[in-house]
């Protein structure tokens, strides 16, 4: 897959990639020996790509996303974001990040939690309010703005954290299992909303998920990863049209891609059944 990545890079020579990782290695030092979380990971993501990461638990998806976001520093290899180092990109507020856990600040109401990045980036009050209401609507939490996090159910908290990342409209969105705690219906709804947003704004999106249909439905590119050590085992370019109604999921093209993902995924597991 290193080849695949490099090939993509060449094809899009005029438009330089948004994210370009080459031979990334990352080793965590723990008390009982080192853990190789990423080994030789190479990947190129172009502007407007919607890239899903899928793979067994512990295969390094979160770690890779964190490397892109300069929250983790690779122990080997190179990576650039918007042609800069991830650190510089971070300082340029290049991306919004949704963590695997909601991570709302308990002393702020939902509203205030969502407004937090806006405050930090210096949006004015009126604009803050407009955007907060907007995204609250988007994740179906209108009316819950004045509640504190502990007064919300798990899924509602997760949606609030998604709203927070969407509020400030970064060019790159990094989302770590944002829809894990949501039911199918809400999930479908948010999937659609996300696709609309993506189509409208041309954002580049990195998306970790455990749902194969979700990955196929959303992505232009699906990265399958495998654990111990964490590495990329397959990069699948999706040729589905950009415009995707929900029932595209019953088309043979969709199922074919899904099948390939499932196979790739299964290869990374070691169950005897």
């Amino acid at each position, binding site marked *: 897959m290193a080849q695949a990545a490099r090939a993509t890079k060449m094809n899009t020579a005029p438009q330089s990639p948004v994210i370009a990782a080459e031979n990334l290695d990352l080793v965590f030092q723990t008390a009982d020996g080192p853990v190789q979380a990423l080994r030789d990971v190479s990947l190129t993501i172009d502007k407007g790509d919607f890239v899903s990461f899928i793979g067994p638990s512990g295969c390094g998806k979160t770690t890779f996303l*964190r490397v892109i*976001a*300069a*929250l983790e520093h690779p122990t080997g290899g190179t990576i650039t974001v918007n042609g800069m180092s991830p650190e510089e990109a*971070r*300082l*340029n*507020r290049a*991306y*919004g*990040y949704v*963590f695997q*856990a909601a*991570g709302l*600040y*308990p*002393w*702020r*109401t939902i509203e205030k939690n969502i407004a*937090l*990045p806006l*405050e*930090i*980036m210096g949006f004015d009050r009126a604009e803050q309010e407009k955007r907060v209401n907007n995204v609250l609507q988007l994740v179906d939490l209108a009316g819950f703005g004045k509640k*504190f*996090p*502990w007064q919300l159910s798990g899924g509602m908290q997760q949606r609030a954290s998604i709203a927070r990342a969407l509020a*400030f409209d970064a060019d790159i969105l*990094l989302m770590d299992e944002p829809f894990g705690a949501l039911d199918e219906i809400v999930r479908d709804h948010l999937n659609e909303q996300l696709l609309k947003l993506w189509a409208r704004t041309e954002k580049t999106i990195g998306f970790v998920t455990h749902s194969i249909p979700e990955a196929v439905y959303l992505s232009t590119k699906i990265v399958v990863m495998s654990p111990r050590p964490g590495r990329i085992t397959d990069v699948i370019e999706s040729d589905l049209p950009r415009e995707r109604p929900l029932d595209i999921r019953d088309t043979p093209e969709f199922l074919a891609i899904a099948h390939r993902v499932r196979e790739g995924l299964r290869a990374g597991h070691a169950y005897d059944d």
Partner: protein
Amino acid sequence: MSALADTARPRAPGALSALASAVLPVLTIVLAIVAIWYAASVMMNRAWTLDQIARQNLEMTTMEIVAATMNQERPVLPTPHQVFNELWSTTAGEPIMRERRGEMQGNPRNLIFHAYHTLWPTILGFGIGSFLGILLAVGIVHSRAMDMSVMPWAIASQTIPILAIAPIIVVVVSNLPALNNAVDQGWISEDTKLLVPKALISSYLSFFPVVVGMVAGLRSPNAMDLDLMRTWSASRGQTFWKLRLPASVPFLFTSLKVSIAAALVGTIVAELPTGARFGLGARLLTGSYYGQTIQIWSALFMAAICAAALVILLGALEKLVLRRMGARP
């Protein structure tokens, strides 16, 4: 202490029972303590009374002996009613102001006068101390150099027995040219000037609990909370105001409560070498110098009442703030 906080909030039907549930336990404990206290005073004062009887060859019944032990003039441990009477007669029983050479001024025979002169430096010292403490904690959390160098010395500073250097501080500070100048210029009064060294010593004792608590508090946000801030490329200032500071609030209040009690101790310590002029410390000192145990105890109680009042105030503030910060009731 919760009694105050509870009544501060309007409560419809349960207000009375809530009050009762807050007061009743306190009352019970207080009663228990008073009982133990009486028993203890009889125990501790007995020897003296018996000694007196033996030396003067008196005949007394047990009841009379018990009564005598509870009403000695110089008891080892004064009884609650003695302390209470003294407290009452030196507060309600004395005018607060007195006339002296045609001028109205505070009456030094009234404990409220002394409490007043102790409270102000305490509050001022507490203000300075906790402000400095927070500042230092902020520095320690943000600068590695400060963390490594200042902290050990802040610790060392606290082991200096303040009573030993208090006289020097009082002498040096009350003779600072700047301070004298301010008095001459009429910017501050002579009384205010006397307050400064007290407040300084009081702040010296009160800053440390704040430093320790705030350093822990400012470091309490977990990795994900901090990572969030990093993804927004928040400046250190923003991370401080919007994450570290709110996260440290529970720690802050805990240390403030400790620190305000320390501030009061600081003021009282500082009052000893200002030459026993006024304030609860001076009162304690003279009481103890003349062996007037009852007077010492009443001054002690006054100090404790002040400290408790301040701690209660802080507790109420804490409740209010934490409630506004979404704490679960």
